[in-house]
């Protein structure tokens, strides 16, 4: 795509995200006319509509935007760091670390509230990714992409085993966990948003600033070093950013797969392999998918809701497949 068109495309995507945000605040089980929506948005007059907008839809929408951006960015980072187009942000053990912590929290500590799960999940995500990085970095002090991938696979397998054993030995925990596992934005109020927003807002700029050194590293560690990139520093910062972003996103909304894997691919199919474009595109396209899926999940079987993790896969996957069919997939 020509450079001028890339910029224009990004503007179009941002506008589309704005439209999706407005729709997400507007649409739902309770019908609120646009004029009234505008009024209660600025004047919290204590009416049912105002409470719905301020306490339910706004936090949910903002959380969706932040979680989506975090998943898209951490996926793009992960694929660039490991130079593996099949890497997804969960590969560092972040997602399963969070799941394991939540399972343990439910089974041993009896934690059953959404906001209680958030901290536990975040601690688990961070711990797992530190272990994976140490394991991957252990080869003569350097974390080569191949070792990171293998270390991630090893830790993921072990945690998966632990999870399944606990869930099958304790049916009550499984009864709670199966709903967390699907991934949802519903029922997350402003308290959850306040818990995770600082981490997400700190992680996003770190991720975006890594675009230039990651471009250099795409050619291999040696060439990257010759081009003036700090190999070790870039990798450590990258892992920190992935952990913070994906960990906080998983803590807030449960393990939402696919977004982090597919959106960076879509971004690369549109703009090529320049990380300075791939990262921003991923950060904008992912929330469009996530918030859009959340709106549809709210409306399609109203008054019940379909969890966002399910809708994301069912909307995102056909688009992704169509994109893969249309053009030859971007390699590194």
């Amino acid at each position, binding site marked *: 795509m020509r450079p001028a068109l890339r910029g224009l495309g990004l503007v179009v995507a941002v506008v589309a995200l704005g439209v999706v945000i407005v729709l997400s605040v507007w649409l739902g089980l309770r019908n609120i006319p646009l004029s009234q929506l505008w009024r209660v948005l600025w004047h919290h007059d204590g009416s049912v509509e105002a409470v719905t907008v301020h306490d339910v839809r706004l936090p949910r929408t903002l959380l969706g935007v932040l979680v989506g951006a975090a998943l898209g960015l951490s996926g793009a980072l992960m694929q660039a760091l490991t130079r593996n187009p099949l890497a997804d942000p969960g590969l560092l053990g972040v997602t399963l670390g969070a799941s394991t912590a939540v399972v343990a929290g439910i089974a041993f500590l009896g934690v059953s509230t959404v906001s209680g799960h958030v901290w536990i999940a975040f601690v688990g995500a961070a711990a797992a990714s530190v272990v994976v990085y140490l394991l991957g970095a252990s080869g003569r002090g350097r974390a080569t992409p191949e070792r990171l991938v293998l270390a991630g696979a090893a830790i993921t397998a072990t945690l998966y085993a632990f999870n399944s054993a606990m869930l*099958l030995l304790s049916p009550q925990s*499984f009864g709670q966990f199966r709903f967390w596992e699907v991934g949802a934005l519903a029922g997350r109020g402003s308290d959850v948003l306040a818990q995770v927003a600082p981490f997400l807002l700190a992680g996003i700029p770190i991720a975006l600033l890594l675009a230039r050194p990651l471009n250099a590293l795409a050619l291999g560690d040696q060439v990257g070093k010759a081009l003036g990139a700090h190999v070790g520093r870039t990798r450590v910062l990258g892992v920190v950013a992935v952990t913070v972003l994906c960990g906080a996103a998983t803590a807030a909304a449960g393990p939402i797969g696919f977004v982090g894997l597919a959106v960076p691919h879509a971004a690369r199919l549109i703009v090529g392999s320049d990380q300075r474009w791939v990262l921003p595109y991923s950060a904008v396209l992912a929330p469009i998918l996530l918030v859009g899926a959340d709106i549809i999940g709210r409306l399609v079987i109203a008054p019940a809701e379909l*969890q966002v993790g399910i809708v994301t896969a069912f909307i995102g996957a056909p688009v992704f497949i169509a994109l*893969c069919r249309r053009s030859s997939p971007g390699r590194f």
Partner: protein
Amino acid sequence: MIIRFRAVSLRVHPRSVTVVITLLLLTFVLAAISMTTGDFPLSVSEVVRTVLGFGDPATEFIVNRLRLPRVLIAILVGAALALSGAVLQSLTRNPLGSPDFIGFAHGSATGALIVILLFQGSMAEISLGALAGGMLTAALAYLLAFRRGVQGFRLVLIGIGLSAMLLAANNYLVTRASLTGAIAAQTWITGTLNGRTWNQVVPLLIALALLLPPTVYFGQKLALLELGDDKARALGVPVEITRLALLAISVTLAAVATAAAGPIAFVALTAPQLARKLTAAPGSGLTAAAATGALLLVAGDLAVQRLFASPLPVGILTSAIGGTYLAWLLVREWRRGRL
């Protein structure tokens, strides 16, 4: 090392041969342990006599009805999954290109879950559902990826897209089910050998016997394909057909294994990697991978039966063993300063 005998010459990698023989011996020892120990301990000679058909009715039931089919299934499923993973990882030249990540297993799971949760089907029906689900998913992925030939990487990506939808559908089915149904489904998804009989062994044996010749024939060409399409073509390999055949073999192996025992996680991913590290040989190392897979599953199933009071699915221990062992190998390499 090269062995020549008249017109035949064979290149042998001594360390690989040692590793494969050791793995097979270990598998045999563990299989013997799991045939002789348990709630009803038997001596080795009693087991041998019973297998040959000279046992009394009680040992006959325990050995030939309960223990033998279970051990055979563990060996066959482990080898099939590992082979499937080794072929796919070599084809995509990517350690993540295993059936676990591309997840045709999710298609098998969807088929099985529909049978378990919507029709309360028998075990044979569940196996059929899993087989149909897995093969349909793979066929659909192939059709969607077809544009003037199939490029391996595009197929993998489309497989990921499809499996994301199927995984979501599986999760949805599990949240909609009753807790009892959900636990039954979860047990199946984790992969278990509990309650397996000759009804699962015989079809598995036939399927693998049919798949073995093409696997050996096309498997030899994997090392050439790893050089890249152009070089392989220059060396006389019909690239497109070979790749299609290998993909079909890998998918069928995984689907057949999954139909017999459920999607046992991470064997296809870790076994080929472990085999590669153990043999330190170049190339795809199909034999070593198959032996590693068989050993992993036999060991996991033995541990699951003896360590836990309630019968847990074997998938749990294969991932635990495979995962920790891979982690340990990485740490050991670090100590030795290799890599």
